[in-house]
Each structure stands twice: as C-alpha cells, then as structure tokens.
C-alpha cells in the first residue's frame, strides 16, 4: 500500500516477472536469441530513472530476496500478478514459467497471483497442461505471447481456430482474464504483426472473458484504443506505458494517458510495473504525483483524479481477480465502480 497526502492506495502489480535469462539457461545453438532478448529488455530498462538501473549480471538473473524487497518492501505493492513468458526455444527452463513463479511465490502466501499461459500450437498436450496448471496453481488468468517461436512457426493469432479451443477451455476452467502481448515476429511476416484485430474477434466471441491488452497495444496504441472503445470486455494494461514514458518523456506520457482516458476510460486501465524491466517504487510514487501539464493542449482530456489513480493502481485489477480490498482503501460510493464493464461505446461527439 502507498499513502500520500492522507490518501491510501491499494496497489496490485498486474504484470511482473521472475525470470532467469542468465547464460546457464540459454539453449545451445540459440544463444544469440536468448542474448538478444534480454538485451532488448535491458534497453527498455534504460528508459527508467538512472538511480534505478541495474548491472546486466543482476538483470539477467535476480534473486527471490531482490524481488521481495523491490516489489513489496520498497515498491508499495500489496498483491503481484505473475505473468509467465516461456520462450523455451531460447531458454532451457523457460524464461519465466508458471512453475518457476509459483515455486518461489508459495513461500510468501497471499502475495502473488499465479497466471499461467498457453500456446495453441501445442494442441492437445498443451490443453492438458493448461488444465493441470489451473488445478495446481489456481490460475484465474493467462498471459498470451503471440510472437513466441514454436517448432519453426514464428507466431499465432487469437482468431486462429486452435486458439478458440483454448479460449473455450479457459471459460470451462474458470479462467477470467486473458492478458495479451502482441509481439513483432509473427506469421505471416508480410502483415502487421502488432495488429490487434484478432483480439477484437476473440473479445466479441468470448464475452465472459476479460482481455487485458498489455503495454496498451504498443506500438499500436491507436488501433488498440479504437478497438477497446467498442468492446466492453477489453482492458488496457499499462505496463511499459508508464515505465517507458513517465520518467524519460513526460509530455508523451501525458498525451498517451490522455488518449487512454478518453478512449478506454479509468475503469478499464490496470497498473503493471513489468518488473524486473523496471522497479515498481518509482512508477507508483511518480504516478500518484502525476497529472497533465497545465497547458491548453491537454485541456480537453478527461480529468485524472485521486479516484482515477486508486482504480488504476489497484482497484480495477483487484476487481478482475477477486482480490479482497480492505475497507480503508475502497472508494466512496460516488467515485464509481472499479473495472466496470459494459459502458463501452463508440465515442461520438466529444
């Protein structure tokens, strides 16, 4: 929890990791990809404040103690949601698997939510694994990474028939939240790999599931916003949006936030630090202090209030995941309903 000026914020980190990208985990023959991947992450890391930067050695493989201190002790987070990323073609034990997350998290009861993942190209075997993970870890959410390489394939789409089998299974298994990350290398390469049209189709066809598009669809914020405004069950995951902009390019951050507030709305935005790309401490503190610059170009964006920040930092995600929020952190009755679906519509006028 975070307290500032007498206001108390319940913080849910909706998107974070416990990865091992050290050379001992690189797949022989795929070292250049494993190395290239973590170097790419490290580039994003550089966009945070200088005093929060880590040496590469720690960045490749940080400890349980590092994570507990950075996220909970220093980072103000009450509950953190693990989002696995497998990448087993490049990392021997996977980059950040459900098992690795849970093995660590089980030593800290009540602190973590264990999301799992699936890949439609894994067929029946993958479906069985999904069932086992839900049973074992109580997963209520999945992280999907559409650009993962798998057996010669360079990616997949949520609208693929194989993916629909898995989405149906998710509904049967009680999974509520589908976190989507659109990645760059996806078949066919002649199309825009970041296109979110497949999320649109899936969100329409699976109205009982919530689709949280991570990184607010970056680098396609425009397509994402226009889709999200028409789909009541599509949410904006703010991971990377805050981390890559708020410190280094505050004016861009203000414009991105303004657009998200207009097209998506404060009830459908969730905070995620993307730890260990960035630590949550500066992001939480900076976001609570943040508002639009006092200039005419920002005047017609929806206002950001303390209630807005409470929803985004924790109350929206708590609602999506059924996390109990102590009374002192809840909103007054006239401050809206966190994560309220169903009010999405094509914005006209304005």
């Amino acid at each position: 929890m975070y307290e500032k000026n007498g206001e108390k914020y319940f913080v849910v980190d909706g998107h974070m990791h416990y990865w091992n990208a050290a050379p001992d985990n690189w797949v022989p023959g795929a070292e250049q990809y494993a190395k290239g991947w973590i170097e790419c992450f490290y580039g994003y890391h550089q966009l945070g404040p200088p005093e929060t930067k880590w040496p590469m050695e720690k960045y490749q493989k940080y400890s349980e103690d590092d994570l507990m201190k950075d996220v909970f002790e220093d980072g103000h987070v009450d509950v953190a949601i693990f989002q696995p990323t497998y990448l087993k073609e490049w990392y021997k034990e996977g980059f950040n698997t459900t098992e690795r997350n849970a093995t660590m998290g089980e030593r800290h009861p009540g602190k973590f939510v264990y999301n799992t993942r699936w890949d439609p190209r894994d067929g029946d075997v993958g479906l069985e694994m999904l069932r086992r993970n839900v049973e074992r870890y109580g997963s209520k959410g999945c992280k999907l990474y559409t650009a993962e390489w798998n057996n010669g394939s360079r990616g997949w789409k949520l609208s693929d028939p194989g993916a629909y089998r898995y989405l149906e299974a998710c509904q049967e298994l009680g999974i509520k939240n589908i976190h989507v990350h659109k990645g760059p290398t996806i078949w066919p390469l002649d199309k825009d790999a970041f296109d979110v049209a497949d999320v649109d189709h899936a969100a329409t066809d699976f109205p009982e599931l919530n689709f949280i598009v991570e990184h607010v669809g970056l680098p396609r914020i425009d397509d994402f916003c226009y889709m999200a405004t028409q789909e009541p069950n599509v949410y904006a995951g703010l991971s990377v949006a805050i981390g890559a902009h708020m410190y280094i390019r505050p004016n861009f951050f203000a414009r991105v936030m303004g657009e998200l507030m207009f097209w998506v709305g404060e009830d459908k935005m969730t905070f995620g630090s993307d730890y260990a790309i960035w630590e949550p401490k500066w992001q939480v503190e900076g976001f609570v202090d943040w508002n639009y610059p006092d200039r005419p170009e920002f005047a017609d964006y929806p206002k950001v209030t303390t209630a807005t920040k409470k929803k985004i930092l924790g109350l929206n995600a708590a609602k999506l995941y059924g996390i109990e929020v102590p009374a002192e952190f809840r909103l007054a009755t006239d401050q809206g309903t966190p994560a309220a679906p169903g009010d999405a519509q094509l914005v006209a006028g304005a």
Partner: protein
Amino acid sequence: MTAPATSRAGGPGGSSSRASSPAAGPRDGACRLAGQAPSVPGEVPGPSGSGVSPGGGVRPRASAALAALATVRDPELDEPITSLGFVTACTVSADGDARVRLRLPTYFCAPNFAFLMVADAYDAISGVPGVRSTEVVLEDHFASDAINGGVAAQAGFAATFDGEAVSELHGLRADFLRKAVMAGTDQVCRPLLAAGASRAALLAMTLGEVPASGALDRLRQRRAELGLPAGDGAPLLIDPVTGARIAEEAVPVHLRRARLTRVSIEANGSICRGLLRHRYGSAGLGQAPEEERKAQ
C-alpha cells in the same frame, strides 16, 4: 531530462553479438560500424558530414548518397532513417562502389519494416549518379542475414522469407501511409483549431486554403503517394482509404482519431529513439544534434 549516456559504458547492453570488436566504447560506435572503411576516428564526419571515404575527390558523391538516404523513411514512424539515427556508414569509392550500414533500436525489430528500409535504402543509393554498385548491410538484427541477402539478390520479400510470408509489402506500406495521413491531419488541424477555427470551417476547407507549412507539404506528399486527392482544391478532411470528404457528423471522431494516431506514432518513435540511444550511444550519420537529443 537527463542524458545517461555514460551509464552503460562497459555494460553488456550495447551493440551485440555480431560486431567484431565489442571492446570499443559507445562513442566509437559509428567509427567501428563504418566497417569496410578504415576505422580512423578523424574520418567520421560530424552530424552534418557527408560520409567516410578513404580516397580523395569522392566526398560530393558520398554526400549525395547520404542525401539519398535522407529520402528513405521508417514506414512505421514516418521519419527519415537518417534523422532517426539508423545510418552508421555511407561511403562511395572512387570507382563508384557504395557501401551503407544501418542499425535499428533492437535485435527483434519487426523484420518486415526492417526489410522495407534496407530495400528502400538500396534503391535510393542505386539511383545516385556515379554509383556503380550498392551494398546495404543491416547489422545486429536477428534477421540480418536473410534481409541483407534478400535485398542484395533483389529477391523481394516473399522470396526472402519463403514460407513465412505470402506477398510483398505494398499493403503494409499503404496501411502505414494512411496512418501518416491521419497523423498529418492532426498536425495541420491542431494549429488551426488553436487559432479559433471551428470544426465546420475545417470541414469546408480545401488544402489550398490552409496556410503554407512544412506539415501541410508533408500531408500533401503522403496523400499523393497513396493516390489520394492532394491538390489545392482537395478537401482537408478526407477518409484515408476512400479519399472521400468526411461527413459532417463524423468530423469530431475523425479529428480525435487523427490525434490518437499521431500520439501513437510519436510515442512509438520516442521509445525507438530511446532504445537506439541506449543500444549504441552515438549519433547516426546525417542525424542533427537536436534529433539525437530527442532520445534523451
């Protein structure tokens, strides 16, 4: 804003696996990346320089080659690859052999856009008077070998990525030109709105009635590239697919989408500049100092 250029000195996050001399400091990057040209620091031109050349008497040609590269845009960011800092070497030998080296913000940048930039650079350089042969090399990218080989062989995208792509990239390029038209619409309309123009006035306006500006020239050029109306009599507000004038009731959403598209492209560009700066820590050839500072 800070300029944390020194924070990565000696760190492992910089120029990656395929460079032959990774010990060089960040500020030597452009020199080292100059590749086949002798790595003499004094030959690396300043931000307004014209290229590296081991021989005398060819500087004007290298300068023309760099100017040609300035016409090549990142299709996704709608900016010249020079001002983005993507060009690290551009030489033309006395015999007319041109050599260009390019770099991108990450190892995993989308291969289709990377291919377009390498292919466009190849075409631009090949069209420079006096150039006899052209080599364009994209460095430090997971698909470098495929892209460089495919462009050198003039193989086209589908053949270069056989089995992973089914067609050429014209559709992709057009999709992003349409985004550039939307973003450009905001660039032209926002000052007009700030000066008090009503939405109805914008709807009635033709391109010829808009006060001259760089943004207007750019918008006209992008529209012309798509085959959309771009003359003086063409409406300012058009659908970027059909070219038809926007209907009155759709103007508010159209202007909102124009701004959204601009914010999206510029936010993307901001991240790309930041990543490139921290990956290499050096300005690109033909990149003005104020362009590089945008990454800070």
